[in-house]
């Protein structure tokens, strides 16, 4: 990537200061809010970047950016056009948060076969154009995913500093259990609550389990996730499989798994 602006030198090496834009499609904008949240490091974070587009944080707008962070999923046709334009303008496109990566909470509506009914229920006599919610990678090539609902600011900081330094960006390959055990939490299963920690990609520092909320899988599947065993575990702890499927469906990262599970003995979508 060749980037114009300069950040000064790092150990004598000239550093690029990338121009970045933050964009939202269908989302709650909570991920962008996270970026403004960590006041202790906010100024240092912003000094690494030249922010040229950030509707939630500034008035000025420019389409001259190197890196685009895109939050949200695609739920309308006009968003596809906007996304393609962002892809055209940016050298690097980053899917920011679960909606952009997997469809997020928005994709829950995809469970309804009749979207017209959903529209009527939500918008009444003021219908809007809408389509099945989808991750942005369904429409454009993306360069990087940052998982989470919302994203973890510390992780974004680590990734951004690596982008600036030209270091490889990596994600943990292990599941949330690894971080949860390091935090010495009581296992949520022992407290009678289902938890997707064993199958969900870590990196959140077991944010929810550390606060005694079982993991809902917002970061999507860990590479070696063992879903067959998770189903056995849920049964052994007398937790209805439907509660497991609810969690797996919530953020969209486990769509294929849910389809498989429902196909092989999981309850159908109209049963409770």
């Amino acid at each position, binding site marked *: 990537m060749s980037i114009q602006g300069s*950040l000064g*030198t*790092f*150990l*004598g090496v000239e*550093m690029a200061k990338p121009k970045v834009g933050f964009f939202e499609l269908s989302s709650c904008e909570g991920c962008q809010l996270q970026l403004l949240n960590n006041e202790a*490091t906010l100024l*240092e*974070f912003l000094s*690494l970047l030249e922010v040229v587009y950030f509707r939630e944080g500034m008035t000025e707008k420019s389409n001259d950016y190197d890196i685009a962070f895109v939050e949200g999923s695609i739920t309308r046709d006009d968003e596809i056009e906007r996304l393609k334009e962002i892809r055209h303008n940016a050298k690097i496109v980053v899917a920011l948060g679960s909606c952009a990566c997997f469809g997020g909470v928005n994709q829950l509506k995809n469970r309804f076969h009749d979207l017209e009914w959903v529209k009527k229920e939500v918008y009444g006599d003021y219908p809007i154009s809408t389509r099945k919610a989808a991750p942005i990678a369904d429409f454009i090539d993306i360069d990087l995913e940052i998982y989470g609902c919302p994203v973890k600011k510390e992780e974004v*900081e*680590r990734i951004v*500093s690596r982008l*600036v*330094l030209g270091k490889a960006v990596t994600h943990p*390959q*292990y*599941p949330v*259990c*690894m971080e949860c*055990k*390091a935090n*010495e939490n*009581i*296992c949520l*299963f*022992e*407290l*009678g609550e289902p938890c997707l*920690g*064993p*199958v969900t990609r870590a990196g959140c520092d077991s944010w929810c389990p550390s606060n005694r909320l079982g993991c809902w899988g917002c970061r999507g599947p*860990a*590479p*070696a*996730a*063992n879903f*067959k*065993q*998770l189903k*056995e*575990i849920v049964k*052994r702890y007398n937790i209805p499989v439907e509660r497991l499927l609810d969690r797996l469906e919530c953020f969209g990262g486990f769509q294929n798994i849910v389809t498989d599970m429902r196909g092989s003995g999981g309850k159908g979508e109209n049963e409770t």
Partner: protein
Amino acid sequence: MIFKVFPAEELAALYELLAVNPIVGPVLKGRDKKDNALYDFALTSGFADLALDYGQTMHSAKKFFLPHREDLCTFTLSDHDWDKHVDYGAYQHTVLFGLHPCDINALNKLDKVLMESVYPNPFYGAKRSNMFIVGHSCSPTPSCFCRSMASDSVIRGFDLFLTRLDDSYFAEVNSAKAYHLLEKIKSYHATDRDHKLFRHAVSEKNKKITAQVDTSDLTKILDMEFHADVWQEWGDKCLSCGTCANVCPTCYCYGVEEEVDLDLRHARKEKLLYSCNLVDFAEVAGGHNFRPESHTRLKYRYYHKHRGFVEAYEESLCVGCGRCGNACLADITVPEVIASVRGGDNNGK
């Protein structure tokens, strides 16, 4: 060994004498949904915090000598130069109060690898050298198989080891510090009667140990059964989540990461405890993974504990504390895995 005895009510006085230092001990962490007590090691703020009748803690006391994350060094960067800072993280003596024999044996095993090897680990050594250890007798749980691993009793690696008798404590005194400490409370040299009470208490404890692992010829049997089908079966269950290694008192494998702070003026090299069951544990530069399959990773954890370490040190790296089996959501326990590998030549539970 010097054996002394003191009245049970003097234990609080002993705690207070030690309390000029931070005291880490077993504390009640919470209760599960069946109302069973759950314990862990934590910094205590008073004698009342100590739950010395704990069965087993969920996690080992590892974070006090092998933290999950630890800076190996930090850097201050200037335009064309840098300063390196190394901090072993041992500023004060720490008292570990109430360790069971399994956990003290675990420290002794770690000492062999991390202090007595060709390349000692100064981070571990600094903390270990500044530790005062008060061991405490245990009441074995159904998952304890320490006796099979010769870790049910301990002869070194502690300052003081206390065994609860009826209304007194039998103290094994293993350091000058501990000897002088006991002089400050009401104590006396153990009598023949105390020796008998001690041996009775130990035999009562041993009766409670029900879980077993047959370790006879185990290194050879593991060699013979390298391709056994049972590994695949356990591998199919394994979640590759690293929980077993995290709760284990002797797992010491780690990875190293380097991070530059956001201000680009500071950086650190950080050590993270890792687990051989994690999918990328054996992934090397270029992307090749020597153990992409779950069962190969699970197998090597057993080979390290029960074969490689035994061949190198003539003892197992496993102390039989049972934590990995307790914590494993897939119910993979050492006695069952070893029994299955042995092909049913015992019925270890």
